[in-house]
């Protein structure tokens, strides 16, 4: 009798385990990822897929500390110009080949040398890579680089199987990526789905349930939510803030927001092209007046339903580089009007460009109404996304509202935007002092010293105000209550370790 019971019990357990492991997790994304090659990819949603598909050297924890993944440990040389990793020795790629230092070297070299690699600037401080033995990886740097470890927690540190590298067919990798993550690639239908399957030889496979993970891009946030509500999806990203109350009220759903690393900002065109010459915003008093006429909290209330936390600086509260020295400017129409009078421009006519989606349109209209009270005549020019990037780069704007998804390392949130030659410095603000400070901060590995330098740079920037931060970009996830163990991370990535689906 006892034996039968235990056999039955075992059978039941096995079926349960089997069914848990034969489940399919369906995740709704806002966009379709681009090419599935970590060295050439550029989309945020692509990174979400990579999180389950490709392991990287190091990862981050929920409080933004570096944790081991493919590398067990690492250390810098005393002069900070040599970074040595000790790698795991029990890692297999999805095609069965072994992951070792030679493979890692091949990956890093590809990331640096491939002509259309988008990771070049991220690894620009790397002089050479050595693999003295299968578990030791050595990076020789041109100069100390505080940003490098953070870069290696993202696409630059992802490891593909070198067997798939084909000099004649670069696109082959993206069509069928072979990595070493907990799930392996099954198929991808553009604009329809990306399907991953559990990789049983993953070194930590017991922590991952689901036989299959399917990513479904559904651009319309209302339809995405409808799918979640009707049971067609299990987890969705970027819930529209105005849908948040509905999700919270629904007994079958859970609302899981987290403050992200990125922000929404307004960039003023100070010196880019002909439009900058007569731009009222060339005068910093007008920029300050504008900032004083906008109530960030109102934007948070009206459009953000409380999750668009007002931002004054590029580093989020979760970041160790956030500084208490720069509190959020309170709205003050009287002061704004006085500043405008000072600058001799009581009624500036300016045009705001922004991406034409509902959220940004609402924010733009709110800003228009608020700034009007101080005397600004803001006209709005919603611009289609593809056209907007060109407008920004060529300086065809007076000021614009644009977002940044955020990077783990603080340098990624500031350097490219405000340094004289910064690739994303569309307003062409240029202050050599700021350049010097930000370049210095890049090589400082001590957090406190680095923060002090950023504070110095910020003091100048908050005075000159080449850009105005509006709010910190949150990552609002929603899932059915059946999804258990899901923790959102500040970088917005969906990590499936420990996540299960109740039957």
């Amino acid at each position, binding site marked *: 009798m006892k034996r039968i019971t235990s056999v039955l019990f075992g059978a039941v357990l096995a079926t349960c385990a089997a069914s848990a492991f034969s489940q399919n997790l369906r995740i709704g994304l806002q966009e379709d990822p681009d090419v599935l090659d970590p060295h050439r990819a550029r989309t945020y949603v692509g990174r979400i897929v990579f999180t389950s598909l490709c392991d990287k050297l190091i990862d981050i924890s929920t409080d933004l500390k570096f944790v081991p993944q493919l590398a067990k440990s690492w250390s810098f040389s005393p002069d900070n110009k040599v970074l040595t990793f000790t790698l795991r020795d029990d890692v297999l790629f999805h095609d069965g080949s072994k992951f070792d230092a030679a493979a890692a070297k091949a990956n890093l070299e590809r990331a640096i040398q491939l002509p259309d690699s988008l990771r070049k600037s991220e690894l620009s401080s790397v002089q050479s890579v050595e693999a003295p033995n299968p578990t030791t990886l050595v990076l020789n740097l041109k100069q100390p680089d505080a940003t490098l470890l953070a870069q290696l927690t993202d696409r630059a540190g992802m490891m593909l199987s070198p067997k798939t590298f084909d000099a004649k067919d670069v696109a082959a990798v993206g069509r069928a990526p072979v990595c070493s993550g907990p799930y392996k690639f099954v198929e991808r239908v*553009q604009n329809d789905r990306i399907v991953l399957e559990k990789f049983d030889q993953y070194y930590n496979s017991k922590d991952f349930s689901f036989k299959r993970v399917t990513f479904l891009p559904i651009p319309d946030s209302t339809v995405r939510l409808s799918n979640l509500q009707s049971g067609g999806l299990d987890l969705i990203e970027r819930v529209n803030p105005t849908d948040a109350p509905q999700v919270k009220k629904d007994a079958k759903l859970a609302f899981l927001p987290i403050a992200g690393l990125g922000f929404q900002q307004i960039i003023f065109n100070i010196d880019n092209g002909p439009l900058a010459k007569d731009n009222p915003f060339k005068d910093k008093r007008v920029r300050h007046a504008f900032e004083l006429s906008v109530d960030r909290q109102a934007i948070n209330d009206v459009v953000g339903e409380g999750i668009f936390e007002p931002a004054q600086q590029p580093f989020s509260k979760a970041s160790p580089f956030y500084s208490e020295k720069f509190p959020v400017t309170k709205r003050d129409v009287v002061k704004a009007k006085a500043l405008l009078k000072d600058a001799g421009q009581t009624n500036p006519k300016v045009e705001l460009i922004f991406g034409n989606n509902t959220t940004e349109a609402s924010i733009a209209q709110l800003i228009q109404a608020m700034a009007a009270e101080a005397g600004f005549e803001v006209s709005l020019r919603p611009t289609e996304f593809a056209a907007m990037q060109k407008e920004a780069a060529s300086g065809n704007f007076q000021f614009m509202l644009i977002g940044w998804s955020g990077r783990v390392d603080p340098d990624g949130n500031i350097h490219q935007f405000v340094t004289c030659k910064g690739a994303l410095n569309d307003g062409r603000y240029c202050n050599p002092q700021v350049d010097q400070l930000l370049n210095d901060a890049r090589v400082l590995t001590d957090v406190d010293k680095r923060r002090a330098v950023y504070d110095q740079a910020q003091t100048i920037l908050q005075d000159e105000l080449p850009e105005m931060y509006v709010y910190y970009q949150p990552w609002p996830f929603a899932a059915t209550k059946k999804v258990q163990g899901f923790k959102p991370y500040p970088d917005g990535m969906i990590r499936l370790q420990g996540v299960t689906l109740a039957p």
Partner: protein
Amino acid sequence: MLKLILNRILVAIPTLLLVSVIVFTLQKILPGDPVLTLAGEERDPVVLQYLRDKYHLDDPLPVQYGAWVMQVIQGDLGKSLRTDVPVTTLIAQKLPVTLQLASMAMLFALLIGIPAGIIAAVRKGTYIEMGANMVALSGMSVPGFWLGILLIMLVSVQWQLLPASGYVPPGQDLWLSLKTMVMPAFVLSTAIAAYLMRHTRSSMLEALSADYVRTARAKGVSPRGVVLHHALRNALMPIVTLVTLLFGELLAGAVLTEQVFTIPGFGKLMVDAVFNRDYAVVQGVVLVVAVGFIFMNLLADVLYVLVNPRLRHA
């Protein structure tokens, strides 16, 4: 007959060339730099230039056009700029989806439109005819995407009857595939059903007042017999060609429906490609659609002649 077909094909060639030129020029004058869109959030100037060279985006337009035509003649429609997937693969994946949607929509439209048209013709002058006409015109007047969103809210979210969006291939799960297609097909069919209803009505009216019908009635054939056997057969002839032409309209009309219901079909492929400045995809896809349209028109002409014996010897 053969002469007709050959003639039409010959005439189609310059049209196709024109289509390709129009689409090509339109794309290139769209503002926005595809390379900037490709290069992502960070903008590495070295990479930007490499991409421009790789896709020959700095070459003069006629050179780019010529290169593309050469490619097409060899059967290569290029690769999606965004994901490197060959355009022919994309078309092979997406065309069946839209065809499935269009077929189901046409089926609904036929099932609704033709009986409605017959009833309206037979009951001419009564309130039933007026009612049918109103319903038909309402179908044509409702903005499809609005109807779609309303249906998703009601049927998927409130009543939990059907999936809100997405697509499942019939090979994988026939029942689920049909369930995902019901709402979009219905939305798409409303305008077409209206057209069919009205055309059925007018050609039935014509048929009913014809001599042979009067003869049949005089001979004592029952009213239903008159309607079904004599009038209907002749009324359906022009409908056949209309259906072929409407199929082409359906393919195009699917664009918005596919956006609302997130169906990975042809229409959505085109719209996304235009917004992403994915030149290769837009060019390849529009070319295929143009070929399809021209083929459909040819088919309609052939069917018309086949079905109408009087024209065969013209």
